């Protein structure tokens, strides 16, 4: 579905944030990338969504080379981003967010989402159609961010810390909605802060630390937490044992 080969990216040419990212997400499923703050999770998702141009490497979506595409082209090809901080439009209402975003005309094969379907998925939004983004709770904002992304009829949904800072019931609702998306043919790639958050979304997790990706690792059994700790040890001069970090 999504193949990334030897990808490097960063905000300045001389200081890459991501190094040699190689991963093959074959299954239409929920995939997670866990890593501490500053590991490069947001950079990875923004690069895949076209907001950042990779310095080297390849990105293939269903066999099609989408490396370095603009966000507009990426969105039209079926890559949607539900960014961290939600990035809603403050002057638009909930209903306007969902109607101004439309599926692309020239992609009849992909699963499209009617506004009513999305309100069924997130009933909390149905009661707040005339409210503006900043009047919503954090959970409702996250739901609107995901609903807006789904309106573009994506094949790949990139979610940056989808349950960060949410009340437990809201987090459970968002998690449930994301886990359900592969049944509709939507692959989800979610960035999460730690392996415990990854375990609620998927059975395996990729660990991103210091700009390098390892995995997949089973989320059960504490292996993923151990891998994360090893990566942290890698960048700490007190514990010089880099060999064990890369399995």
């Amino acid at each position, binding site marked *: 579905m999504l193949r990334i080969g030897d990808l490097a990216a960063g905000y300045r040419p001389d200081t890459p944030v991501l190094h040699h990212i190689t991963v093959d997400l074959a299954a239409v499923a929920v995939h997670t990338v866990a890593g501490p703050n500053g590991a490069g999770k947001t950079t990875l998702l923004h690069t895949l*969504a*076209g*907001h950042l141009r990779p310095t080297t490497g390849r990105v293939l979506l269903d066999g099609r080379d989408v490396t370095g595409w*603009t*966000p*507009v082209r990426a*969105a*039209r090809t079926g890559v*949607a*981003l539900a*960014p961290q901080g939600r*990035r*809603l*439009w*403050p*002057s*638009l209402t909930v209903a*306007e967010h969902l*109607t*101004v*975003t*439309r599926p*692309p005309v020239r992609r009849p094969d992909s699963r499209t989402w009617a506004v009513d379907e999305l309100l069924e998925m997130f009933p909390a939004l149905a009661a707040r159609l005339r409210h*503006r983004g*900043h009047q919503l709770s954090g959970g409702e904002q996250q739901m609107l961010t995901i609903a*807006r*992304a789904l*309106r*573009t009829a994506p094949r790949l949904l990139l979610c940056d810390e989808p349950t960060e800072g949410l009340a437990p019931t809201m987090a459970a609702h968002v998690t449930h909605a994301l886990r359900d998306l592969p049944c509709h043919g939507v692959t989800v790639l979610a960035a999460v802060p730690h392996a415990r958050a990854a375990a609620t979304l998927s059975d395996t997790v990729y660990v991103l630390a210091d700009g390098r990706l390892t995995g997949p690792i089973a989320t059960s059994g504490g292996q993923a937490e151990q891998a994360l700790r090893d990566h942290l040890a890698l960048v700490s001069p007190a514990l010089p044992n880099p060999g064990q970090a890369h399995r």
Partner: protein
Amino acid sequence: MDAYLIPAVDGVAYGLLLAIAAAGLTVAFGAGGVLNLAHGTLIAAGGYVAAATSSGTWPSLAAAVALAAGVGAAGGGVLAAATAALQGRGHLDQALLTFGVALVGADLLTAAYGSDTLRPRLPEVLEATVRIAGHRYPVDRLAVLGVAVAVVAAGYVVLHRTRAGRLIRATVDDRAMVAGIGVNPRLVDAAVLVAAGALAGLAGALTTPILGVGPHTADTALLLSLIIVVCGGLGSVPGALTAALAVGVVQTVGVTSFPALAPYLLIGAMAVVLLARRTSLPAGASA
């Protein structure tokens, strides 16, 4: 009483015309970051074209208004093409480019229409005066007021009830997320500049029965528009409308009531607004 009432109605009409002109300027800045210093030239171009076209008949008046809006839109299109090439190089480069366009445009307009102040010939009905509640009032100014109210209302409907308007507001808020839903924000920028040009041309045409159009029209219109944009908050249409009405009233009532203070009134009022606000521009109040 008439000494205050008539300038007050004039001020509201003039304020609405300034609002029509400045709304496009503020949205173009808010959406695409284009500080269009040729905006006043588009207003003057609309005024000249309208004054030259309107010959005292209704069809020529309609043609004058349509041509003025068309000339403004064409100018907006030229500016959109020119500033698109400078995207990502900062406000200063774009300001310099549009300033150059303004200088060239002003010279071309003077070459074409001379350096006299022109006034359009209107149909006779509009040249008369009417008595309303005991006050005599020129019909043309009431007509301008009515058209201005209609244009402002139409602008509100377009911004809030159409997909194009919602996309414009979304682009002012967060253009990267507009790209993220598969809409090219540069297309929105270009559409905003064309629409802003059309509104500037229209405002220029509507101003000519009141003020005429001459070599100073472009500079005055640009200065007042910039004052409105700064006082109203960059990118905010309701802010521009409020500020424009205030500027219109200060310019007419203030000047007729306190002639000695006339040159300082507007700048003084702007200083008061900026001091009172002090904080950063209101976020979330845009469009």
